[in-house]
């Protein structure tokens, strides 16, 4: 009919690509093996899960229990807010040192960033274990863990935020003969402020999520109730805890999103 030839529907993979696919697939199966993946357990799970749901529902709504859980939740939020606020405040001077071309030399920037990377790489629950050893069981250990976790996060992102600001105002202030620190305080930080607010609100959301499980290792908050509930097979109470955590975390996310748009508008 015509001289145009239809392209083949699928290109034949070349040898290298084929080897790549095969390797990738092998890797996935290897991981599934390592993770103890078992069809048998998958099949037996739904009935067992149904059994759990059956025993957990309805959740415990005994007023006395709910009051106790409520107070534990308040403690959880106190840990989260106190830790996040301290972390955010300490992050500002650390970020100043970590930001390139601001007040410290390149070597100092890089070393600070590496330390922050290490702090982020250690999971929050591991920090909590460390602080339980250092200051003993209780919410104070949890607050310290949240503060350190927040520094790892905000220190890095505050530094990035400051590096990304328009350099014009800083140059104009340098030209007036201002000192480096004055330039940073008057030009760089005000310009980075919306980004700081946004990053800090994310840090708060993260802190609330973390603080709900710190109790698992004895670092305060509602996590301990979850552990006790499961240990004593008191599933209705455990279910109340889970639902409470979900409600609070979602509420904090909504609140933080609302605050973000209120304070800095739609811009990021």
């Amino acid at each position, binding site marked *: 009919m015509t001289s145009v030839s239809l392209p083949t529907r699928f290109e034949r993979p070349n040898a290298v690509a084929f080897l790549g696919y095969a390797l990738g697939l092998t890797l996935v199966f290897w991981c599934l093996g390592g993770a103890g993946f078992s069809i048998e357990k998958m099949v037996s799970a739904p009935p067992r899960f149904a059994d759990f749901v059956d025993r957990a529902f309805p959740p415990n709504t005994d007023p006395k229990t709910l009051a106790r859980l409520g107070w534990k939740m308040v403690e959880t939020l106190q840990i989260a807010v106190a830790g996040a606020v301290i972390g955010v405040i300490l992050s500002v001077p650390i970020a100043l040192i970590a930001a390139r071309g601001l007040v410290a030399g390149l070597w100092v920037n890089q070393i600070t960033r590496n330390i922050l990377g290490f702090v982020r790489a250690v999971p929050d629950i591991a920090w909590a274990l460390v602080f339980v050893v250092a200051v003993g069981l209780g919410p104070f250990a949890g607050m310290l863990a949240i503060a350190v976790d927040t520094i790892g996060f905000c220190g890095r992102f505050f530094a990035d935020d400051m590096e990304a600001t328009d350099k*014009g*105002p800083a*140059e*104009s*202030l*340098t*030209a*007036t*003969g*201002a*000192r480096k620190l*004055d*330039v940073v*305080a*008057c*030009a760089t930080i*005000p*310009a980075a*402020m919306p980004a700081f607010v946004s990053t800090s609100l994310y840090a708060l959301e993260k802190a609330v999520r973390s603080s709900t499980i710190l109790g698992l290792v004895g670092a305060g908050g509602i996590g301990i109730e979850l552990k006790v509930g499961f240990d004593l097979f008191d599933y209705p109470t455990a279910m109340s805890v889970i639902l409470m955590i979900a409600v609070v975390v979602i509420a904090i996310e909504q609140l933080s999103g609302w605050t973000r748009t209120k304070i800095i508008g739609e811009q990021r």
Partner: protein
Amino acid sequence: MFPPVSAVDIEVQDITKSFGSTAVFKDVSFRLARGEAVALVGANGTGKSTLLRCVMGLLPVTGGQVILLGKNATAAKSKALRDLRARIGLVSQKHNLVPRLSVLSNVCHGLLGRSPSIRHWGHPVAPKTSREAAMHALEKVGLADFATRRADRLSGGQSQRVAIARAIVGKPEILIADEPCASLDPSAGEDIMDLFFELARGEGVTVVFTSHNIEHALRYGDRVLGLAGGSMRLDATAASLSASDLRGLYD
């Protein structure tokens, strides 16, 4: 007539500037007598802004030296360099105001060089004399009524006026302007140039400004320097030049 040679405010001696291996300009020299207004002209990308940054020590020079107000700025340590900068006012092509802060706070920042202090971070904490000086500077640029307005809520022309107020609040001996009206529409640009030179002449300060507007260079400059192809191709009094003499620089 030029003032006597002893009153030289800016002396640039054979400065060279390279970024990596690419030279922007080479062995550029000129001197500015006190009270003189000099226009630096040249096509876009010839290095006018870079030259001004080198003069203020905002960029290190690759070779040569700059003498500001009788002191060697190239060899100066950071404190001495800051003291020199405090005696110079800079207005850039972009107004470079700090957004979110008030107009008055932005003007107070102009005093950070003269008296480095946390009290000049913003007008609410500034000493009374500084707030008065800042208001006075705003009055000179006709924006006294805008003192408490946020700096990012101004028009382009108003922003540039605030930038001028910030540059003059510290009573500089030299004013440097890098295409002060390039980001404005022509009529607002004329207003800014008129205002800038009215203030500069009134205070008797030495002025360097860059422009790629030939009429501006001839109208406002006593002397015209022309940068082209990485070297200073022209240094003549404005009266001795015509617009066609300058057009040659842009070829």
